[in-house]
């Protein structure tokens, strides 16, 4: 394993007077303006969002631009704030589970898993093996689904419509697989505290095997369609470069961190569920088309991860055995007094739950660390000095789900 780069003490951008003001958007570094702009005009403030096709939801980014060059950017959040953490302090542990579906609604299974694992940790519950296998299968299947959306919408951001529909073709099958298990297509609440809600239906695993076969063929198609398309590469390479030290310092996780070449994957480095018994590679950005840590690297890591997920699914299919799917957990869950943090590798990075329990039915504090929230925080650093079209490419490559940034 390569040693992760040392977090450098990269100083933040110089803070001009007026920081803390609602209209403060930062500025270019000293000297940058002279290099980037031939014709200097007055800067213009533009609102990108909250209703904008490329902000992936109701994110609002206040941009300042001189012509096509972005000179400052400041994300404004909160348009989709639904008080998840406050609700967590008001409802019982199991009742909160459906709310976890709604943070990163593209990876609801992974959210269920993260929350269930956090509560199980505080309860000291051992989850049965079959349930663990099923959880791993669903976490990986949902990772594929989530990355498919990310792949498709990134194509849309860059201006290619077709990959989106190709991605949805396979995602539709994946959703049907979910539907067969839990009846829901988006908000599953299938992984429960102590195991999973129900055993798999007859023939489901065989269908999953067929899905894996078909998906591997289609994966090649995605690459042909978008990854190596000359225009796409030109639009994404050397754009939004995120050095490894900076990614670590700003708390970026998931494909964002791995795109910068840092081999960090909780599935391998802090293994949970059945991952210790599975063999898979951590996909890394390598600067294949441009500089390490550019948009193309971040994009391609996600594509590679889909393939790794198929590999994991195949191994799960070989190893899964019969058994109970639910631990002996009472209907009304009382969690012993304690506090703990559990992080799981979501498609977008580390989803953390910090739960404080006083021994009762309701948690004292249910903190959610959404990966999109942390990954997005570097946006204001990455945008100044890029072009307006690049800002779309950067937001797309950060791959946020606003349900999670705002919770």
């Amino acid at each position: 394993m390569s040693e992760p780069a040392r977090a450098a003490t990269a100083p933040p951008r110089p803070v001009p007077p007026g920081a803390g003001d609602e209209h403060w958007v930062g500025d270019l570094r000293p000297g940058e303006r002279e290099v980037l702009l031939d014709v200097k005009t007055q800067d213009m403030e533009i609102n990108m969002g909250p209703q904008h096709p490329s902000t992936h939801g109701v994110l609002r980014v206040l941009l300042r631009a001189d012509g096509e060059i972005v000179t400052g950017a400041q994300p404004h959040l909160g348009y989709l704030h639904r008080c998840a953490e406050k609700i967590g302090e008001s409802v019982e542990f199991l009742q909160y589970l459906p709310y976890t579906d709604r943070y990163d609604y593209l990876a609801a299974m992974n959210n269920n898993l993260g929350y269930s694992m956090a509560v199980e940790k505080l309860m000291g519950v051992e989850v049965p093996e079959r349930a663990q296998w099923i959880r791993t299968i669903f976490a990986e299947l949902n990772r594929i689904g989530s990355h498919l959306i990310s792949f498709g919408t990134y194509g849309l951001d860059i201006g290619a419509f077709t990959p989106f529909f190709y991605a949805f073709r396979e995602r539709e099958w994946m959703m049907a697989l979910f539907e067969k298990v839990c009846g829901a297509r988006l908000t599953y609440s299938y992984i429960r505290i102590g195991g999973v809600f129900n055993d798999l239906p007859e023939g489901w695993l065989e269908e999953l095997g067929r899905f894996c076969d078909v998906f591997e063929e289609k994966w090649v198609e995605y690459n042909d369609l978008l990854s190596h398309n000359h225009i796409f590469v030109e639009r994404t390479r050397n754009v939004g470069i995120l050095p490894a030290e900076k990614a670590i310092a700003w708390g970026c996780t998931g494909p964002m961190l791995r795109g910068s070449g840092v081999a960090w994957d909780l599935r391998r480095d802090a293994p949970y569920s059945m991952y210790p018994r599975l063999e898979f590679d951590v996909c890394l950005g390598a600067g294949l088309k441009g500089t390490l840590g550019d948009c193309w690297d971040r994009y391609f890591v996600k594509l590679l991860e889909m393939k790794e997920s198929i590999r994991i699914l195949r191994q799960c299919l070989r190893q899964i055995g019969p058994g109970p799917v639910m631990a002996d957990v009472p209907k009304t869950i009382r969690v012993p007094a304690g506090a703990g943090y559990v992080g799981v590798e979501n498609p977008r990075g580390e989803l953390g739950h910090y739960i404080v329990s006083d021994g009762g039915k309701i948690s004292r504090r249910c903190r959610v660390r959404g990966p999109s929230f942390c990954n997005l925080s570097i946006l204001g650093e990455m945008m100044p000095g890029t072009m307006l079209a690049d800002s779309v490419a950067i937001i797309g490559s950060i791959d946020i789900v606003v349900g999670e940034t705002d919770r």
Partner: protein
Amino acid sequence: MAKSFEEVLGRLQALGVPGVIASLDPEQASKADPLAPVPARKPGTKGPFGDPHLLVEAKRIPEVLRTLRDDPELRFEMLADVTGVDYAKEAANLGVIYVLLSLAHHTRLVLRADVPKAAPRLPSAVEIHPAANWHEREAGEMLGLVFEGHPDPRNILLSDDWVGFPLRKDYEFPVEYHGISCV
């Protein structure tokens, strides 16, 4: 390969970092007054489950974080999370939680600093970990914590004119907001 909590604590003590008050077991860490004695458990019961915490003096947070980050044997490079906890309505203190991650040693560490509710001020960690920026903004608006030296201490999820701190236990839900009924 991962370092245990005891190893980390031992190293910190060996370095003589000022500000480390105590180590807390998970049950202590969930109490409003972490240093108060915990009643003895029934023999045979497992637990407590959760993470051990390191109780740190709030004023010394930046120093502790810097040592944790820069010491070659600790190397907690990533600040995964910063948040606050209001343990109870009658509690005198708010807890501020820092979740650190060492990529080099595959270790996670949870820090807790207590600040009085009456004056919940502590220094900001943005200088050491830029990742703290948004987390501190969120903790600030939700729990009324004031991170001194934060470059951009605006609200992040709530609107700028929101009254009260929603995650405080004594928070009263507003009846209306700008003429919009909330009940």
